[in-house]
């Protein structure tokens, strides 16, 4: 289709021209997803580590649940957070619906299970290898958990990158709790949805190119980290 080629060249012109609106949308996307992944890591990493090294009743069930929550549909998370933050809902008095804060919360809810479940797996694998030696040296549970977190830091870093990628790429949650308000809560993914439905393909494609580039860069970064880590630290 000819229009695809035209759309691509128009998109390229937009990107090269460093359109101010485009920059604002991209900047907001990065801020929201970055803040969300930071919160998700602060919550999910200790949780994953704790489950990895502790033994308790219902542990297996909790692991299965956590793994299942990785597949939470973003649009469902959006709906649930919307119901929470709506004026008619329990946290309505906070008045943060349709603001970036709400988007950060929704994305944090979405990716905390991912970080918790994957870090749990990584730390548990390491724990199997290290457990006896650490106990022999006299490390108690919490010290052991922290040692394991540090030792698996490169794998954990790629997990965090994966979480960030998932947040930056989703549209369902931020659309519902953010409202896609021009200049306030419009991010790359919601802008692409809007421009596509308006039939304004060049802008949508331009944003799409930026988004794909971001995802590719994240994956490349993860690969580089793995390489460097292996060579330097073994």
């Amino acid at each position, binding site marked *: 289709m000819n229009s695809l080629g035209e759309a691509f060249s128009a998109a390229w012109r937009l990107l090269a021209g460093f359109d101010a609106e485009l920059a604002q949308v991209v900047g907001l996307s990065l801020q929201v997803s970055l803040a969300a992944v930071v919160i998700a890591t602060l919550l999910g990493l200790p949780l994953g580590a704790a489950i990895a090294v502790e033994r308790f009743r219902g542990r297996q069930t909790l692991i299965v649940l956590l793994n299942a929550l990785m597949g939470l549909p973003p649009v469902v998370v959006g709906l649930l957070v919307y119901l929470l933050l709506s004026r008619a809902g329990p946290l309505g008095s906070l008045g943060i619906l349709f603001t970036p804060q709400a988007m950060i919360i929704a994305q944090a809810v979405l990716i905390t299970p991912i970080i918790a479940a994957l870090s749990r797996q990584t730390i548990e694998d390491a724990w199997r290898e*290290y457990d006896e030696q650490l106990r022999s040296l006299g490390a108690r549970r919490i010290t052991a958990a922290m040692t394991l977190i540090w030792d698996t830091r490169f794998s954990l870093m790629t997990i965090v990158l994966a979480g960030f990628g998932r947040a930056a790429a989703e549209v369902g949650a931020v659309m519902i709790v953010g409202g896609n308000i021009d200049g306030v809560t419009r991010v790359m993914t919601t802008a692409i949805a809007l421009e596509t439905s308006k039939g304004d393909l060049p802008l949508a494609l331009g944003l799409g190119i930026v988004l794909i580039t971001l995802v590719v860069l994240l994956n490349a970064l993860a690969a580089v980290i793995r390489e460097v880590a292996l060579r330097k630290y073994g």
Partner: protein
Amino acid sequence: MLPLELNAVSFAAGDTAIINGITARIEAGPRTIILGPNGAGKSVLMRLCHGLFQPTAGSVNWHGAKNGDVRRRQAMVFQRPVMLRRSALANVMYGLKLAGKSRRECELRAMDVLEVVGLAQHTARAARVLSGGEQQRLALARAWALGPDVLFLDEPTANLDPASTHDIENIINAIHASGTKIIMTTHNLGQARRLGDEILFISNGRLLEHTPIDRFFKEPASPEAAAFIKGELPWH
């Protein structure tokens, strides 16, 4: 802490008895080798003594030492060295820091020990990129730095080449000379002869012999030991 007394110690995993009613008294002084064919239960016995496992029956008693104290005054080196993802020096310092020493003390002591085991050139290198023999030397250094009363070693040279094995054996002797009690497992007769002062012979989870080394090799009391010395496969 010594003598170490094992009273009818048993360990079962599910229905299978891995250690079956072992009673023994291990004194301070001689280098003790726990000898036996593969699958006899030597590694499990070591872990029971060191406290990594709890016996399902019977008890492990250290003489006069309180519970918290006991762990800190022992150390263990495993068949496969477990190195933390940090420098060789940091690995040795890890155990010392856990024992509550100041950073300065940790560093000095660690450097000393690394010097003795011949790794002074490698202190800043990442521990996990060292060779197998170097890593095992590092593991010994890490254990020795803690100044333990008892050092357990579980088949420490099983995966190493002869040159590395030789290095390790020398270090073990040096540790013994410095006053630490050595308790080691091996299935290698030659090594037992080189390093042992007394033998605990284990077969099928039972303690069959506890004798000084010369008597063990000249006049083994049990048919299993005799077969083992001759290099035959044990019959059930």
